[in-house]
């Protein structure tokens, strides 16, 4: 069958038996989690229902993701979601956000009406009767995508509006390394400018069918079948290198030699060789499709301030080789009012980027999937599974010992003179108090991984959003400084789930299961001999009516904290009532230093906090 639905891919990805086994194991973990939590809550004279939060502490803005509201009201379901994520095909999750869940109210998706295109890519691919099977197939759905995009523009008759939206979103997501040298008045002026753009965006997004690009992405995904992304290489092309230009950009059919592809690349199909790509696309509304079937390749995307791929869809699929992906911002699995899918099937790969990259989505989705090899991911900001307004970003790494690094470029001038913003690695973000945020997922299925970040990362979110880091197995290291490792700040949700392995969690504060300001956050480690190190307001901490949980179900673990007063099952008082902080260790011989906890006992020194080691 030439074209098949995305659901078929999902079925192929998941062997049925493995799913059943994983679900059973998942249920077992969750049952133990639920039981332990109910025990601990009884010590605070509460029930699990008391952990429920509202979805309307402030007037709802209309951009709220349904999944965020759902998990705020039933936060324990979030832990179940995170624990099963690593056993599922994450694309399915993306589908769930955009298709099965009610769309944010202000983003109005509607059924798409196909219009006859004025010209099609296929026309340009009908060259001398040659069988460019893959190209034809690619052309088929690009044609569909193009129709969708044309339709969008025609229907709205306001491409200028979309340009404004893209510029506004760029203003909100862009940081400047020079900010640390600006005066208080300059910074205030920048803040006012950004606020004015936020208000403008609320109006603009409320008056256009901004959901259409995301819906179009789903249509597009429906047409991606085994024939393209999940099958073996197409019949070997025995002709010479071929290149021609279309209104959409350059189309290149390579061969098995090493090639240098550059410029306004629209479609590239390469059969092998160590290739170099330099993608130089300008303006917006662009798409790039690259299928590379072998070789150690280097992909380079010219740095752009405004995403050339906004309001478009792009696919880069690399089937083999140790590859290097180097982009600035808005690429490597990024979807801004559209969709971006990057899929590397094997090899030890290296990914480098700046902002909004490596699985980042806003009013659409971005997926970066890497199936194997020991990979390195390095970015500055809003990356590695990042979801912004009405969007989802997913970084899914199936196997290998991987290293994830986020931060180091833009200083967190608000809080520190020597720390950097990350806002990455399973991070959801919204603009307070105007725009609810999106969903960011970082899922790693295996290997001994290292996660490095600084401020805001690793299963964390800010402002009516959701951030999840789910690591199924391996001996992993989670290193961060603040707001990380299962943390939610300001009416939002964060979760870090680790399935097994002897892991290390290290950081300063507001982490390791910390919910701040009517947020819910959890760190659940299901098995292994783990080490947890933090300074303050961590390890099961609730702050400003937020709820935080740290639950370790198995293994001989060690817990170290610096400040005993606000860690290991601590909830402070705000607005005349408490925040809930719970720390639970369910097995093994555990060591404690610096805090309230001790092996095989219970403790509760704060009115709204409790610890339990069984």
């Amino acid at each position, binding site marked *: 069958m030439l074209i098949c639905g995305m659901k078929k891919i999902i079925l192929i990805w998941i062997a049925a038996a493995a799913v059943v086994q994983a679900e059973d194991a998942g249920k077992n973990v969750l049952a133990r989690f639920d039981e332990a939590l109910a025990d601990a809550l*009884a*010590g*605070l*004279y*509460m*029930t699990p*229902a*008391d952990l429920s939060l*509202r979805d309307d*502490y*402030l*007037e709802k803005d209309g951009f709220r993701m349904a999944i965020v509201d759902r998990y705020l009201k039933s936060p324990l379901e979030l832990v179940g979601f995170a624990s099963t994520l690593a056993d599922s095909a994450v694309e399915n999750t993306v589908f769930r956000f955009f298709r099965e869940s009610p769309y944010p109210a202000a983003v109005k998706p509607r059924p798409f009406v196909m219009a006859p295109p004025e010209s099609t890519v296929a026309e340009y691919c009908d060259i001398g009767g040659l069988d460019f099977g893959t190209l034809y197939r690619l052309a088929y759905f690009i044609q569909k995508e193009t129709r969708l995009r044309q339709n969008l523009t025609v229907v709205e008759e306001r491409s200028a509006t979309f340009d404004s939206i893209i510029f506004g979103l760029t203003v909100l997501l862009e940081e400047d390394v020079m900010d*640390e040298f600006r005066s*208080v*008045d300059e*910074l*205030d002026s920048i*803040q006012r400018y950004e*606020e004015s753009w936020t208000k403008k965006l609320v109006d603009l997004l409320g008056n256009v069918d901004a959901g259409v690009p995301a819906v179009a992405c789903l249509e597009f995904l429906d047409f991606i079948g085994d024939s393209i992304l999940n099958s073996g290489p197409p019949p070997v092309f025995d002709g010479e290198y071929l290149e021609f230009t279309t209104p959409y950009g350059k189309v290149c059919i390579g061969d098995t030699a090493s090639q240098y592809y550059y410029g306004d690349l629209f479609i590239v199909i390469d059969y092998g060789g160590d290739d170099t790509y330099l993608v130089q696309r300008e303006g917006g509304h662009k798409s790039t499709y690259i299928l590379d079937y072998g070789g150690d390749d280097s992909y380079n995307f010219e740095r752009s301030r405004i995403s050339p791929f906004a309001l478009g869809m792009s696919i880069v699929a690399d089937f083999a080789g140790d590859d290097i992906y180097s982009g600035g911002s808005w690429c490597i699995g990024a979807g801004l009012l559209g969709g971006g899918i990057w899929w590397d099937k094997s090899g030890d790969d290296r990914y480098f980027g700046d902002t909004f990259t490596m699985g980042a989505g806003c009013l659409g989705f971005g997926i970066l999937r890497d199936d194997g090899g020991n990979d390195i991911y390095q970015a500055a900001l809003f990356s590695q599974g990042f979801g912004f307004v009405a969007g989802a970003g997913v970084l899914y790494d199936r196997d290998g010992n991987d290293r994830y690094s986020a931060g180091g470029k833009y200083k967190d*001038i*608000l*809080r*520190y*003179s020597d720390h950097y913003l990350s806002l990455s690695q399973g991070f959801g973000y919204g603009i*307070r*108090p*105007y725009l609810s945020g999106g969903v960011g997922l970082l899922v790693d299925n295996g290997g001994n991984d290292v996660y490095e970040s600084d401020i805001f990362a690793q299963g964390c979110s800010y402002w009516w959003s959701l951030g999840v880091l789910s690591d199924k197995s391996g001996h992993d290291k989670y290193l961060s400084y603040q707001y990380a490792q299962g943390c939610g700040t300001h009416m939002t949700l964060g979760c870090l789930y680790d399935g097994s392995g002897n892991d290390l969690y290290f950081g300063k504060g507001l982490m390791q299961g910390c919910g701040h300001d009517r947020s819910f956050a959890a760190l659940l480690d299901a098995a292994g001999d783990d080490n947890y190190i933090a300074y303050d307001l961590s390890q099961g901490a609730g702050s400003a*009516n937020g709820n935080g949980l740290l639950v370790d179900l198995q293994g001989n673990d060690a817990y170290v904290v610096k400040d005993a007063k606000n860690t290991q099952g601590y909830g402070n008082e705000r*607005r*005349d*009532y*408490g925040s*809930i902080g719970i720390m639970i260790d369910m097995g093994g011989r555990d060591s404690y230093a610096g805090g309230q906890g001790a092996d095989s*006992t*219970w*403790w*509760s*020194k704060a*009115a*709204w906090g*409790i610890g*339990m080691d069984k």
Partner: protein
Amino acid sequence: MSNKTFISAMVLLIAVAYGVAAAEEAFPPPDSIGRIVDSLFIRASSGEIRFQAEVEPSRKALIALGIKAVPRLLSKLDTRDAREMLEITEIFKGIGESAVESLISVLRSDDGFARRLAIRCLGEIKSDKAVWSLQAMAQHRDFRTRVETMTALGNIGSPAASAAVQTGLNDSIELVATAAAAACGKIKKDIDPNALLAVLTHRYYGVRYAAARSLALIGESVIAPVSAYLDSSDDINAKCFAILSLAVKGSEKSVRTLSRFAESESWQVRTAVADALGMTKVRKAEPILKKMIAKENHPLAAAKAKAALALLD
């Protein structure tokens, strides 16, 4: 000059004057009070760590301007910025009584942010003059406004608001009921303990906790109704909160009542008893706690009893 010319000239003059006034409002001269307030406010509400040294002096300068700064500050009440909200509250708290009338005028605002922040400021100023106007907001259709109102009435602490906050206990929104329960403990006078006891079974823990603590703050007068409630209640969690409401500081009568439940079959009840005994800080609780420690087999109840004993020291 004819009458017609004179009238035309006057109209032109008035129009120019209005224009100048409007331009001044939009672009006030550098030494105007508006510009000074703006400049100080940027510094006072700056969150960046680099500018922290400027925050306190700028706030003090704004407070020192007093009533002169109020009109410009009122225009900032509709801010959506959390730091600015906190700072405005601090500044109005510093300015105090002289800002009350102006803040009351904002209660009619259609802007929810401005209205709620004005209420918060009035609560921080703690002026009895605001109680009547705030009571009118206790039934506002926006529940967030009702939450702020309950909190503000509690902060002011006037018994004149006791009926309004007790009505708030039955609000369908749990956050309003929580704020109302907390306010009851701050007002104390004319608060019916039974109204607070009735919400100890509330579905939301915030309400239960706030009600229990308010009962304890009201003092020994609640011991009899709480004791009766304990004898009739079957709900373990509600019973625990009722026990916590007996944590009346310095009350031997509380200790005597609590001792009745020190050997309860429920480890949760025993935990609550230990907690409450510690909070009374009454020496006579010592033997009860020691006995509890000797017999206790639940780790949490034992830990609470030991912690309570330490509080008595």
